[in-house]
């Protein structure tokens, strides 16, 4: 297993476990899963809080820096929010009202 695979597998597992605990609690579901090993403790008590503390932009840059299909050529996403239909004029403007 390459380093990036190892990182992806573990980060996904422990970030999900952390999210499951929070969302479970919010929905009245008891989530068991105390750390059983040293590895569990590292990922849950060091990696997950560190990841959550990172600013969004830095987090996205780090994810983007990992090798993978996302770094190859792909069509760009639609503009968000989407522009109004070209036939639509609201209040004399070519732009839909946004709240």
């Amino acid at each position, binding site marked *: 297993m390459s380093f990036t695979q190892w990182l992806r597998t573990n980060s996904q597992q422990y970030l*999900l476990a952390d999210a499951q605990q929070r969302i479970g609690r919010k*929905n009245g579901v008891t989530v068991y899963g105390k750390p059983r090993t040293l590895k569990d403790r590292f990922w849950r008590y060091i990696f997950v809080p560190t*990841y959550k503390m990172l600013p969004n932009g830095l987090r996205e840059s780090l*994810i983007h820096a990992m090798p993978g*299909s996302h770094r190859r050529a792909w069509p760009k996403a639609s503009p968000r929010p989407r522009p109004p239909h070209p036939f639509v004029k609201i209040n004399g403007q070519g732009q839909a009202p946004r709240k």
Partner: protein
Amino acid sequence: MKIVVIGGGAAGLGAAGAALGVDPSAEMVVYTQFEDVAYSPCGIPFVHGKEIESFDRLFLATKQQYKDQGIDVHYETTVESIDTKRHVIKVQGEGEVRYDKLVLATGWNYRDPNLPGGDLKGIYRVKNIQRAREWDSFLDTVKSAVVVECGLIAVEMVTALVHRGIKVTVVDPGPWPMAEVVDPDIVDPVRAGWAEAGVTTLWGEQVTAFGGNGTLSYVETTAGRIEAELAIIGTRKVPNSDLARAAGIALGGTGGIVVDARMQTSAPDVYAAGDCTEIPHGVSGVPLQGLSGSHAYAQGKTAGINAAGAVREYQPVYVPWAMLAGEWMIGGVSFGETTASAVGMNYVAGTAKGITRARYYPGVKPITVKLLADPDSRCLIGAQIVGGEGVKERADFLAVAVRAGITIDDLATMENVYSPAIGALNEPIQMAALAVQQNFRR
């Protein structure tokens, strides 16, 4: 031109057919290590559950039909290696075979739980149709089964085993079924349905060993020993990318083959499609692996068209999905609350409970829709749905909505079909969008 495809699933046969559509003169060879090609493995649980009468119904076409189309399928044939520089593959029993264009569609495997006793008879990985035929007779002799981790096919197998009158125990380290993709409030009716059907569930527990004398007779778990003659492996899908790795083709963090929108790999004239690849998510950009058969088929067609010399681009994915889980249909698009929280994405969510037909019309079913919106742009970023019917259509629609950058305000003012037999006055998607708008104001 000679196009070689490795793999005979939805992606492989999709690639072969699409390539011949572009260039009917191409020499098309497909290698598969299995006895059959292009059947629906996702249909296997429904044959086991007796909803479908025969495994033969799962095949998309006969072997003769592929021959007639000009696809030369080599069954039970293993490709041992790829030399991308010389444009040759080494095939067991055939030696070196040259290609002009190569499509890798090698599919997936269940993640190996790597447990003691894993070689005992009675441990079933639902995937191969010929093995499924053999297992189907075995199921008649089984009284008690353990499902080891509750992935999507395993969820369908729980229902199938219950239909066969088999006592089922689910052991999963996650806190609820399909916890990698579904939120607890959405899956709650499924849990309740299983409890009613007598399914024992051990969440947050793990299988530690299989035991028996040559044949499985018990399963050891962190919650104790369970007597069982059958264990269903329901661990997550991992890409079968060993051949690509050995050939020096780039793999991503998921272990899947790295591809671009034309499904081209890092090696010249080599394409890849289906579960052996990874595809970027349309909202987060994070590559995903292990999507559905419809994704594999569409990717295969894209790879085949490009391999044959035309141009088609695949898009980043928003992953609409839906399935039958007991008496319920469950599905979603893109993010749920759990997955959005896991990647650290901000969202505003709203949930609405509705009905699928006019309240007085026979067969009306409840349905719950949850929508997630981006707090800055107010665009839809995900959805989860559970109901008695109408889940697939809503998931498909919402996937287009996420992809197109539709806002929660658009959905809150959407028009909807009203016809007593097929649609209620209030569309649950619109009601959920109104709930999101309310939560924005808080």
